[in-house]
């Protein structure tokens, strides 16, 4: 408490930001946070809106949907319906964090702790990010993508490119490998191999559709019984490799969208953990700053006010309720893990025998590194947090007249709550499970997809039809989709729509 505070007013300067960053960095190092080097960029609110509209990517290709996003943000912002995010951080090396110039010094320090040390170390440490994304080359790849698409627009016209992008975006969530480990994106290689690849790919595709009959017809039918041999989960990949009519440049666009989807896939899977981790660290780091007498009470009040509004969870019946706040859930769980390690109760020893009383820092880092939201909740959601948040589970079954409360935060419910909540964060349950089932290679070349229902939940029909038109544009021939509940087809879509009754195949 002998040290004097770094600053006493709320104004920030570049020197102050540097000093705060250095001090926060020191403490982070004591905790052993492993980060990429960060690049802090000060931007204005207009620039923040731009960054927001392009999903935080520092450079992206042009598409009307980003314009729509931008108009939406601009409108809500100018009407005061929405504050801008204090920060955006990009998973790259160096990791880029945007700070808004309007923020006060306390907010800037909060953002530095949150983004440059919290998110940053998460990007570097979590297994999903390290195996699925390549922080070193993402900026290069985005640049490659942008330039490539601009070239396409010049050669083939904006409308053509837009049409392909529309179709790809509709399938973007199905452009990821969920189970296969991907090759990291490398921009330099990408450029070098691009021309070669497109030529080669075209040849391969043509080979698949070769119409010259084989010498031995019996063998041929045997072989062509089934294509693809196994159902394929990555629709865009399948299109890129097998769609018969796409031009090489269109294939490349499919690939770009797919690669970008893959890059964002880990973020979609680790929202709770990522935000929880970042909140935990800004909370811990700034409190340490205060303990060392580096910041004033005024600073702390402002920080705590911002912090508590970020992690506020409105109850289910509040007009502000819009789902479980990932910041709240994540932060509470992280804090609770530390508590379990440091001051375990009997209940904790019962539920978490292996971490109760262990070194909290090691435990927390292990949790950060080796889980995604689903498994993290399944592993670490403690009864304390469930009681704290007063979680309860409702089951809405269309065969029942009423909605049922199936579990609440009590002894008999903890286990069920935890499983159900983890299930909600399983992308496989959240998004319909749709796979490429078969292609009629010898017939009308139609593509058949299969949807396996989760708890009998059907597909939303309108959206599904629209997506199929996009898929049809990419594939070039008829597209069918069967929705299955226990091997029984309950819904059938096709594009172009059948004139009369749909002939079952």
């Amino acid at each position, binding site marked *: 408490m002998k040290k004097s505070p770094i600053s006493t007013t709320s104004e920030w300067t570049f020197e102050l930001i540097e000093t705060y960053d250095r001090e926060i960095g020191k403490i982070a190092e004591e905790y052993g946070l492993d980060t990429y080097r960060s690049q802090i960029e000060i931007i204005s609110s207009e620039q923040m809106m731009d960054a927001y509209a392009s999903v935080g990517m520092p450079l992206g290709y042009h598409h009307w949907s980003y314009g729509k996003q*931008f108009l939406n943000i601009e409108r809500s912002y100018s009407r005061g319906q929405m504050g801008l995010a204090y920060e955006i951080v990009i998973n790259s090396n160096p990791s880029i964090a945007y700070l808004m110039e309007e923020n006060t010094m306390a907010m800037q320090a909060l953002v530095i702790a949150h983004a440059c040390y919290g998110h940053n170390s998460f990007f570097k440490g979590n297994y999903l990010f390290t195996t699925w994304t390549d922080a070193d080359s993402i900026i290069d790849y985005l640049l490659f993508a942008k330039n490539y698409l601009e070239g396409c627009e010049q050669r083939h016209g904006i409308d053509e490119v837009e049409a392909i992008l529309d179709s790809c975006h509709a399938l973007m969530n199905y452009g990821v490998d969920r189970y296969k480990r991907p090759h990291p994106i490398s921009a330099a290689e990408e450029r070098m191999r691009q021309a070669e690849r497109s030529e080669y790919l075209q040849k391969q595709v043509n080979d698949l559709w070769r119409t010259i009959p084989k010498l031995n017809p019996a063998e041929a039918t045997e072989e062509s019984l089934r294509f693809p041999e196994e159902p394929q989960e990555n629709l865009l990949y399948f299109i890129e490799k097998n769609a018969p009519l796409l031009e090489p440049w269109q294939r490349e666009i499919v690939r770009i969208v797919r690669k970008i989807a893959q890059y964002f896939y880990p973020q979609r899977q680790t929202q709770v953990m990522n935000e929880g981790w970042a909140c935990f660290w800004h909370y811990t780091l700034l409190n340490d700053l205060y303990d060392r007498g580096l910041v004033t009470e005024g600073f702390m009040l402002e920080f705590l006010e911002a912090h508590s509004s970020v992690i506020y969870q409105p109850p289910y019946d509040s007009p502000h309720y819009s789902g479980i706040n990932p910041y709240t859930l994540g932060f509470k769980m992280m804090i609770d893990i530390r508590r379990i390690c440091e001051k375990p109760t009997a209940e904790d020893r019962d539920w978490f025998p292996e971490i109760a009383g262990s070194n909290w820092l090691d435990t927390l880092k292990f949790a950060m590194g080796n889980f995604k939201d689903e498994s993290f909740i399944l592993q670490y959601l403690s009864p304390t947090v469930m009681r704290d*948040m007063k979680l309860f589970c*409702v089951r809405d079954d269309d065969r029942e007249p009423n909605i*049922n409360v199936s579990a609440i935060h009590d002894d008999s419910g903890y286990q069920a709550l935890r499983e159900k909540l983890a299930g909600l964060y399983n992308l496989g349950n959240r998004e319909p499970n749709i796979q490429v089932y078969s292609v009629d290679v010898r017939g009308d070349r139609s593509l058949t997809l299969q949807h396996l229902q989760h*708890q009998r939940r059907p597909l*939303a029909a309108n959206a599904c039809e629209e997506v199929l038109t996009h898929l049809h544009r990419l594939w070039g021939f008829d597209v069918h989709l069967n929705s299955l509940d226990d091997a029984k087809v309950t819904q059938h879509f096709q594009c172009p729509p059948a004139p009369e009754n749909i002939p079952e195949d």
Partner: protein
Amino acid sequence: MSYIVDRRLNAKNKSAVNRQRFLRRYRQHIKKAVGEALTHRSITDINKGEKIGIPTKDISEPTFHQGQGGSTDNILPGNKEFITGDSIPRPQGGGGGGAGEGNASDQGEGMDEFVFQITQEEFLEFMFEDLELPNLVKRQLKGSESFKTVRAGITNEGSPGRINIVRSLRAANARRIALTTGKRRKLKELENQKALLSEIDDTLKDKRKIEQIEADILQLRKAIKRVPWLDDFDLKYNLHVKVPTPSSKAVMFCVMDVSGSMNQATKDIAKRFFILLYLFLQRNYERTEVVFIRHHTSAKEVDEEEFFYSRETGGTIVSSALKLMNEIIDERFSPSEWNIYGAQASDGDNWNDDSSTCFEMLTQELVPKCQYFSYIEITPRNHQALWEEYEGVKAAFPDEFAMEQIVSSADIYPVFRELFQKKSA
């Protein structure tokens, strides 16, 4: 530890292209909205931006997602009164509710319209798209009576008042360097030689040689000096040339019938039409003047307020207004300097005898002087004599004269577009 970069001065319109793409894609929607806005707007704020609404379903980006039905489990926070096994009646309409996405990302869903703002510029752009004032090009070539002097570089000849000092001295300097370099080099050599020779001991000195060198040096110096410091052909002059400027002035005559048969609603429609024309001219000319002429049995030039809002009664003699317009043109707006546009609005009433006078006025005097003369008849009724006479004018001047009928205010914009449609070449 970290790099800190100030990016505030970087371009902030990174999304401008994407925004343009959006406007481009939904062009049809926006045009429709602009057209509607125009008819509902009050006149004074016609020059503003506009809020555009597009049905959300038209701009949604579809993805596969789960529909209603089946069984869903949802976890909610903030339990107050429920215990396990409680049964709650299903809320009407709402249904299952999505999984805990917990982000603000689904903001705006459920709204019927996607609403956004376009700027005034964009609004006008959409409003005047595909429209073009007829004969604009012709007049720009023809009406070249006024000139503007513009700079056209540097020349070797000119009047002393136009001397460009910097260029002249630069040229002189270059000339001097070019003419004396060889001599200077020689001079230097000789001076070096002289220095070498004079260093030698007095007795051994070759005095004659030194003298010779000194004479040479003197001659060289003189030669160098003879090069003039400033010569005639060093002088450079600024060149100004006269360019004919297309006349950028326009005058618009608003002629309106204010006789008893015109009610306020009809006048309002006329007013909107005039405003559109005015805005349109404003965009095409540097300076646009407006002359308001109202008439019943006699015509009068008035200010805008009086033009639109004062009431008169009585019969109608259209030719009186046309006569006045002609007089004003002769007095103040010479057709060689001004682009003249006439816009006449009336309900079609006229004294029958007068219509033929109008025909003569227009064909012989007015239309030849005008760039364009448009007539709108605001009436749901059948046409009368005036319309028939005007049709004759139209036949005589198909390019300069246009006429349309307007029934309600919703017709204004289409009619306006019709009148000023880009004529394909």
